[in-house]
Structures are given as structure tokens and as C-alpha cells.
């Protein structure tokens, strides 16, 4: 087996704040193979976006990637690269598509300029050639009249158009990996599908891998071959997409699936997960999900669960893997009880 394109090994990104050390990403390991589309799912605050920024080493100042973490990409440890070599990776071998196309583009540069810039930095194209490249990219992402659009400013484009521009910008250098952080969250529902389709289509043609970060399991189901579920800075479950949807193991994943509206399914009440993610400065000992878990027992309090292997390519960070009989006796989770007494 050849080495995967991207491999995270025990990635830990901590933020040193006035109120304590926030362990936003706390020992995350996973890989993305060449040409593969992998989804990372979780609620906001679970560390999925920080994971993405850590890969590109764009974590802001009170935060830093801890020693002992490793991010291997195309055979190099990104964390060991010099700043210059890292710049050569960013936008060239790994590109990023951000959540907010509204704010991700610089309002005082034309979109053509902003796309051309990538070609100028990495391919050393002349101003004129880079501009031609920008127009070509705009055409590729399906923007009509790209020659005119190139010299417009971001605010002159619709949200969907802007996200197309961001995608064009990401694909200029034909990168090996695109990290898409909630690429459609800020868009209208109808546009969402178009953008995802575009991204899937282009990357399939170009053989690009995608790391798709989202809170939306529906998006994952349609686009990803493999899913990584994150909770409280950790990977809690990883599996092939079909397997995950058929046999979710972790109670948190169960909860997420229960909270997902099903098109065509009977109109059952949306199950939501009681309680909220604990603050990253104070992860509980033992299992971090136990207060919100309907199966939690004393072992979950005592012992931080490891990632158990529960099937081929399927892992889960839940003690149910070794005590499956506990699943037969659900109870209201602690968070729900607390909520009830508080109310």
C-alpha cells in the first residue's frame, strides 16, 4: 500500500488564552488518499476548522500546533517545513475554499486580479498571462462572460458567483488537495447543490482530493466516500460513508443522524442531542460526550475511550465497542436531566 496523500498523526492545536489553554484539536489522526473525498463532520467548536487551518499552518497567534504532532503531505512533514517551503505548498499543492465567499475575497481587488495572483506567485506567469489564466479559470467554473467578470469587484457578484471565484482561485495550480471549509453554508439552498456539484465534477476531472469540512451530514452523504466524525477536539468515529449511515456506532454519530432531516422519510420528530459541547478549556476526563450520552455508565467517567476497531476501516471512540450489551438500556442523558431540573 502506498502512503496516503495527506496523513495527520496526533495533531494537537492548543490556544493559550487568558481563561486557560483551549485544546481545540486534541490528538487527531486521519488520512486522505489520492483522488479521495473525505468528509469531516461535527458541531461548531469541535475543532474541525482549526484542523483545516493547522494543515496549512494558518493558526492565529494565541494558538499553536503542539510538538509531537505530524502532518505528512506528499512525503513531507509540513510542520517541519520552513516558511518559504510552506508558502510553496499553500495555494499550489493544497488550496483552501473558505466558508464565507462574501468576506474571503478582498473587496478592493478585482476578482481577476485575485485569481491571477495565484498564477503569478506559483507559476511565475507574467501579468498578462496570469490574467488570461484567470479568465480561463472563470470559464472553467462556469461564470458567463468571464472576460468582463474578471475586471469586476467581488461586491458586484452574487454569493454563488463569488464562491465560484473562490473555487477558481483554489484550482488555478491544479492542487493535489483542496480543503473546503463549509463551502456552501453561507449560500442559498438551491445554489449549494450547484456549487458542490461543480466542486465534485472539477476535482474528479483533475484528480484532486478533497477534505470537505461540514456540519451537514447530507452534504457528506452525497459527496464523500469516507467520513470522520469529530467531537470535542477528537475523532470519535471514522468509517466508509455507506457503513456509517447504515451502522453508526458512536452515540454522538447516532445523535447527528437522528438530527438529520430525511427527504422522503416519514415525518418523525427531529431528534436533537441534549446539552452543548463543553468549553475547549475544560474537556471532561473520561469520555467527553458522556454528559450528553443516553448510554453513559461509570466506565465512561473513569476511562477515556480509545478508538476501538469495530469493523474494516470503521473505528469508534466508545466503550460500547467492548460492552455492546449496554446499548439495550438507554436512559435520559445527564445534560437532559440537568436541563429538566434547571427548568
Amino acid at each position, binding site marked *: 500500500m502506498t502512503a496516503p496523500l495527506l496523513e495527520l498523526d496526533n495533531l494537537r492545536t492548543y490556544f493559550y488564552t487568558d481563561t486557560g489553554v483551549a485544546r481545540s484539536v486534541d490528538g487527531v489522526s486521519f488520512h486522505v488518499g489520492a483522488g479521495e473525498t473525505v468528509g469531516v463532520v461535527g458541531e461548531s467548536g469541535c475543532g474541525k476548522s482549526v484542523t483545516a487551518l493547522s494543515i496549512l499552518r494558518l*493558526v*492565529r*497567534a494565541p494558538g*499553536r*500546533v503542539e510538538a509531537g504532532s505530524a502532518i505528512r503531505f506528499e512525503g513531507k512533514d509540513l510542520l*517541519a517545513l*520552513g*516558511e518559504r517551503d510552506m508558502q510553496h505548498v499553500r495555494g499550489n499543492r493544497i488550496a483552501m475554499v473558505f466558508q464565507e465567499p462574501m468576506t474571503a475575497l478582498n473587496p478592493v481587488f478585482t476578482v481577476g486580479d485575485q485569481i491571477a495572483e495565484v498564477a503569478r506567485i506559483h507559476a511565475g506567469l507574467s501579468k498578462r498571462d496570469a490574467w488570461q489564466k484567470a479568465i480561463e479559470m472563470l470559464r472553467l467554473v462556469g461564470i458567463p462572460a468571464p472576460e468582463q467578470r474578471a475586471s469586476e469587484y467581488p461586491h458586484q457578484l452574487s454569493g454563488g458567483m463569488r464562491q465560484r471565484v473562490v473555487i477558481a482561485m483554489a484550482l488555478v495550480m491544479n492542487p493535489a488537495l483542496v480543503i473546503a471549509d463549509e463551502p456552501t453554508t453561507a449560500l442559498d439552498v438551491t445554489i449549494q447543490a450547484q456549487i458542490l456539484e461543480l466542486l465534485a465534477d472539477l476535482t474528479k476531472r483533475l484528480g484532486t482530493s478533497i477534505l470537505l469540512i461540514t456540519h451537514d451530514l447530507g452534504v457528506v452523504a452525497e459527496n464523500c466516500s469516507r467520513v470522520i466524525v469529530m467531537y470535542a477536539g477528537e475523532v470519535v468515529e471514522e468509517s466508509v460513508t455507506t457503513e456509517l449511515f447504515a451502522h453508526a456506532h458512536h452515540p454522538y454519530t447516532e445523535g447527528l443522524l437522528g438530527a438529520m432531516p430525511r427527504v422522503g422519510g416519514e415525518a418523525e420528530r427531529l431528534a436533537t442531542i441534549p446539552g452543548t459541547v463543553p468549553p475547549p478549556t475544560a474537556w471532561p476526563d473520561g469520555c467527553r460526550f458522556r454528559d450528553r450520552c443516553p448510554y453513559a455508565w461509570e466506565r465512561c467517567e473513569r476511562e477515556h475511550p480509545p478508538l476501538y476497531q469495530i469493523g474494516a476501516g470503521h473505528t469508534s471512540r466508545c466503550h460500547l465497542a467492548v460492552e455492546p450489551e449496554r446499548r439495550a438500556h438507554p436512559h435520559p442523558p445527564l445534560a437532559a436531566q440537568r436541563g429538566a431540573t434547571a427548568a
Partner: protein
Amino acid sequence: MTTVITAVRARPVLARLARDSRARAAAVVLVVIIGSALLAPVIAPHDPAANLDIVHLNSQPPSWAYPLGTDPFSRDVLSRLLWGTRISLAIAFVAVSLSMTLGVVVGAVAGYAGGLADAVLMRLVDTALSMPRLLLLIAVVALWGDVSIAALTLLLAGTGWFAVSRLTRAETLVVREREFVIAARMLGASPWRILTRHVLPNVAAPGLVAATLGIANVILLEAGLSYIGIGVRAPAASWGGIIQDGAERVGDLWWLTLFPGLAILITVFACNALGDALRDALDPRQLAPAPGTTTSDRPR
């Protein structure tokens, strides 16, 4: 309620301020300067207005007997500098206190009254803000002729409240719409009570910054007016006045320019540094390091 919140926030602000070396240094400098102003009658070697010996002791360069030299009227520059500190600081403190009060009152009235009164007041404030303050002062002082120190202070106060009134008005407008004030109004709380309990605590922090910087500004303005010869009048001593006494012969009487100028510079610098430190302490975002500067291989 707001008072409580402000009080809670004040603690980390003070802590941040105490950790700031700028603020500490500035505070020490200001204490020394204020101390020497208070002690001027005791530590000044001579009467600041006395002509010691108009024939033999005029325009003497610094010496052991007269450490900062004498002026063309044979007055001791050190003594004048010390007494001048008193006058310059007193004018600045009184003027800024007055203009702060005036600014808060006008701003609160405008914000609270709204409508035409607000529109007229704020238009006037905008006009005043777009005129050079120095020029306004020059015009008034020059046209009115000789102006006493008290009148000068009033003038400085009267031209310094515009920015604070804008600040207070904005805050009043925000506070006015908040539920607890609406609730308080329905309970019959007077506008005065709403001002002191709800508006002032929110204006206090930016107001303090404005006051610190305002003192620096007034010291500079007073010095400038006195230098032009229309500020504090002889024989009373002020920093700008001493410089003006030597201005016609800068090349020869350099000590009359150098020392009072340094006194102004140090005082104003300390006030501005304190104001900057205060602003940073109130807005810690400014101190946050830039994104991208920290990476795993370059830990801070």
C-alpha cells in the same frame, strides 16, 4: 446593572495597565512633574517674576548659580520653569475637567432630547470639529485683546468639549433604547438618574482616554498661544511664555528654548503614553499578535 458590568471589567483593565511598562513609566514621570509643580514655592530658588539684576544678570547662560540660565529681564529660568509648571498644569487640568463636564452634558442633552435640538447641536459640533482649534483660539484671544489666565482656561475648556459630546451622545442614544432604561423610565426615573447610572459608566472609559489625551493637547495649545504672545502674559511664567521671551534670539539664548520645550515634551509625552496605554488596556484586541506570524516551528 451597567455599573456592575463596568466594575467587573475595570479590574482586568487596571491589571493590564499595571503590566504595561509604558503606563508605569508615564505615571512616575507625571507624579514627579505634578510634585514639582505643587512644591514650586518651596524648591524654586528665586521669585519667578523678580528682575534679579537687570544690568549684570540678564541673558546669562546656564551656570551653577542659575542652572538653567536667566532671561533678558534677568529672571531665573529654573524658577520660572517650576512656577510655569504650576500654571501650565493648572490650566490644563481645570480646562479639561470643565470641557469633559460640558461635553458630557451637551452630549447627553442632545442624545436624550433628540429631534431638532439634537440636529442643531451636532451640526454645530461638526463645524467646530472641522475648524482648527488653535485658529479658533487665536481668533478669540486676538480679538478680545488681553485675556486673563482664568479667561484663557475658560476658552480652552470651551473649545475642547466637542469630541466628548459626540461620544456621550452616541452612548446616550444606545442606552436610551435599551430595555432597562425604558423600564426605568416607566418606573419614573429622572433623566438625571439615567444619565448618572446608565450613560456615564459607559462613557467613563473612553472619556478617561479622551481626558488624558486632552490634557496633553491643552498643554500644547496653551504653550503655543503663549509662544505667539497671546496666552499667559508676563510677568506670570508659563512654559510657552519662557520660550517666547527668547524666541527673537534663538541662536544666542538657546537655553530659553531648550529647557521649557523639554518640559512640555516630557509632560505631553507622558500624558499621551498614558492615554495610549489606557486605550490599549480597554481594547486588548489591539495587542493581539497578527495572524500567520505564529507557526509550530516558531512558537512565541
